[in-house]
C-alpha cells in the first residue's frame, strides 16, 4: 500500500455475534497527524483500537502500518514495529512500582530484553528514559509508589507514561481523560499537548470531550453504529449534520 500513510485501514470489520461493532471502516492517517475519533458510546471506537493494536482479530478487511500488511501480525510485534497504545480502562501492573511499570515498557524495546545475566536495575539508560517519561506526565515524585496505590488521575497519567516509554511512532490514546473529574482533566490535556508539540508523533485519540478534540486535532473521524460517518477538519465536522444527529440521537426519534 501507499507509503504516504503511516496507518491505513481497508474495510475493517468486526462483529460480536449479530452485533457489528466495526463496520467497513476506511481510515488513512498520515505521518505526524493528530486524528481524533469521536462518537457516542458503543460506536465501536475502542473496538477499532483493539483491532489496530492487535488485541482482537478482525473478521474482514486489512490493516496497513508503515506500508506493511499487519492484519495477522501478533500484538507484541506491532509494538516492536512502532505502535503504542494506552487503555480506556486503566490497565497497568498493579503491584509493581510506578517506575518499574514504565521501565518495563522501555525494556521491552531494548536489545537487552533477553539478557539473562545482566542486572536489570543497573541498566541505567533504561531507567533514565523511564524517569524522562515520568517527568513528561509529572509523576516523577511518585516513582517509588505501587501503581495500585495511585489516584485514578495519576493512574491515567501512568498509562500515558507507559505508552510513551514504548517509543512508538504511532500513539493510540484511548480516552486519556476517562472517568476524571473536571479539575483533573486540564493536567492530562497539558500532557497530551506537550507530547504533540515535543515528540512529533502521530497520534490517534478517542475522546468524548468535544472542546479538547476540536482544539487539538488536525482531523476528526466520527463513528456511529460501527461505521465511519464523517472525516475532516474540526470546523467541518462541527457543522456536519450527520454528526449533530449522532450526538443528539435524532435517528431514533425521526
Amino acid at each position, binding site marked *: 500500500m501507499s507509503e504516504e500513510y503511516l496507518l491505513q485501514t481497508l474495510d475493517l470489520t468486526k462483529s460480536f455475534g449479530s452485533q457489528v461493532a466495526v463496520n467497513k471502516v476506511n481510515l488513512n492517517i498520515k505521518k505526524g497527524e493528530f486524528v481524533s475519533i469521536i462518537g457516542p458510546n458503543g460506536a465501536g471506537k475502542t473496538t477499532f483500537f483493539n483491532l489496530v493494536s492487535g488485541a482482537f482479530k478482525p473478521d474482514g478487511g486489512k490493516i496497513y502500518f508503515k506500508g506493511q500488511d499487519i492484519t495477522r501480525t501478533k500484538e*507484541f510485534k506491532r*509494538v516492536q514495529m512502532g505502535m503504542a497504545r494506552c487503555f480506556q480502562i486503566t*490497565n497497568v501492573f498493579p503491584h509493581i512500582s510506578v517506575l518499574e511499570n514504565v521501565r518495563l515498557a522501555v525494556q521491552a524495546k531494548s536489545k537487552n530484553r533477553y539478557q539473562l545475566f545482566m542486572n536489570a536495575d543497573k541498566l541505567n539508560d533504561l531507567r533514565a528514559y523511564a524517569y524522562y517519561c515520568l517527568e513528561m506526565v509529572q509523576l516523577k515524585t511518585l516513582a517509588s509508589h505501587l501503581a495500585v496505590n495511585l489516584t485514578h488521575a495519576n493512574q491515567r497519567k501512568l498509562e500515558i507514561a507507559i505508552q510513551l516509554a514504548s517509543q512508538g511512532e504511532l500513539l493510540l490514546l484511548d480516552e486519556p481523560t476517562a472517568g476524571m473529574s473536571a479539575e483533573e482533566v486540564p493536567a492530562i490535556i497539558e500532557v497530551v499537548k506537550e507530547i504533540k508539540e515535543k515528540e512529533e508523533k502521530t497520534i490517534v485519540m478517542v475522546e468524548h470531550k468535544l472542546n479538547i478534540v476540536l482544539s487539538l486535532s488536525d482531523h476528526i473521524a466520527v463513528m456511529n453504529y460501527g461505521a465511519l460517518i464523517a472525516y475532516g477538519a474540526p470546523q467541518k465536522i462541527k457543522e456536519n449534520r450527520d454528526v449533530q444527529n449522532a450526538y443528539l440521537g435524532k435517528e431514533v426519534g425521526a
Partner: protein
Amino acid sequence: MSMKIYFQRYWAGIVILIILALLPLFSSEYTKIVAMQIFIFGVFAISYDILLGYTGIASFGHAIFFGTGAYVSALMMIKAGYSFWATLPFVIVICALIGLLIGFLTLRFATIYFTIVTLALGQFCYFLLTNALTYQYTGGDDGLHGIPAILQTKTQMYYLALAFLLAMFFIAKKIVSSPPGKTLVAIRENEFRAKMIGYNVLNYRLIALVISGVMAGLAGSMNAAVLKSVFPSFMGAGTTIDVILMTILGGMGSILGPVIGAALVIICQQYLSSYFEWWLMIFGIIFVLVVLFLPQGLIGIFYRLKDKNNTSEQKLKNENYNRFKNHFLGKCFQLFRRQDS
C-alpha cells in the same frame, strides 16, 4: 560496597554459611545425608519458585525433570560407564528439550490447563518408569542401584552438595533480577498488558520453564549421585507435592524462602517420622498455621524482624512487598478452589 556494610546486611547468611561449612566436622553420617537432601531439594524448590513464584504458573508435574535428571545420570553411569560429570551435559540438554516440548504443548494457556496437563504428563512419566516393557532399563519399582561413588567420602559429597546449592542459588538470584526475570513478574501481574507493551509472552514463559526444568534436572542428578540409587518415586506425584509444599511453606517469589521450606519439610520427614507415627498430621497442622498466619511463608518472619529497626523507606518497600505477596497468594488459592469445583 565496603566490607562493613556487606557484613551488616548479610550477617545472618554468613553465620549460617559458617555453621554449614563446619557441620561435617562434628556430625554423624546420617545427619550429613539429611543435610545433603536439604541442599538438593533446596535447589529443586528454587527451580519450582522460578516457575510458581516469579512466572505465576503452577506445574503439577515438576518431578518429571527431577526424575529425568536422576534416571539419565543413573542409566549413563551404570549401563554405559560414563562419569557423573560427563552425564550432566546430557541432563541439561534433555531437560531443556522436555521443557520446550511441554511448553510448546501447554504454555499458550498457562492457567489451570497447564496445571492439569503437567499433572497428567507427570503420571504418564511415572508409569513409563514402572512399566513391564521398560523394566530391563529402569528396574521398575525397584529402581536402579549400584551407582558408582563420585567422591571418596561423605564429607566431600557434603561439600559438593553445598557448593551446588550455593551456585544454583546465586544463578537463580541473578536470573530473577535480569531483564527477563523482571519481565516474568510483569507477565504474572498482567499478561495482557505485557503483550501490549511488546513482550512475546510465550517466549518468556518458555525461558522460565526451560531454566526451571534444567535446574530441577540437575538436582535430580545430584540426588542420584548422593543416594547411589534412583527410584521411580523421584518422578512421582509425591515428589511434586513435596516441592510445592516447600515452596509455599518457605515463601514463594523469594528464592531463599523455598530453601528454608525444603529444610523444614525434610527435617520433619526425617525426625518427626521417627517419633510419631502420625507425623504427617502434625506436619499438616504446621502447614495450615503457616498459610493462615504467615501468608508470605516462613521467610516472612525474617522480613518482620528486619522491619523493626529499619528506615521508613525500607518499611515502605517491605509493605509493598507484603501487599504483593498477599495478593499473589490469594490468586493461588483461587487456582486451587477452581480446581476443587
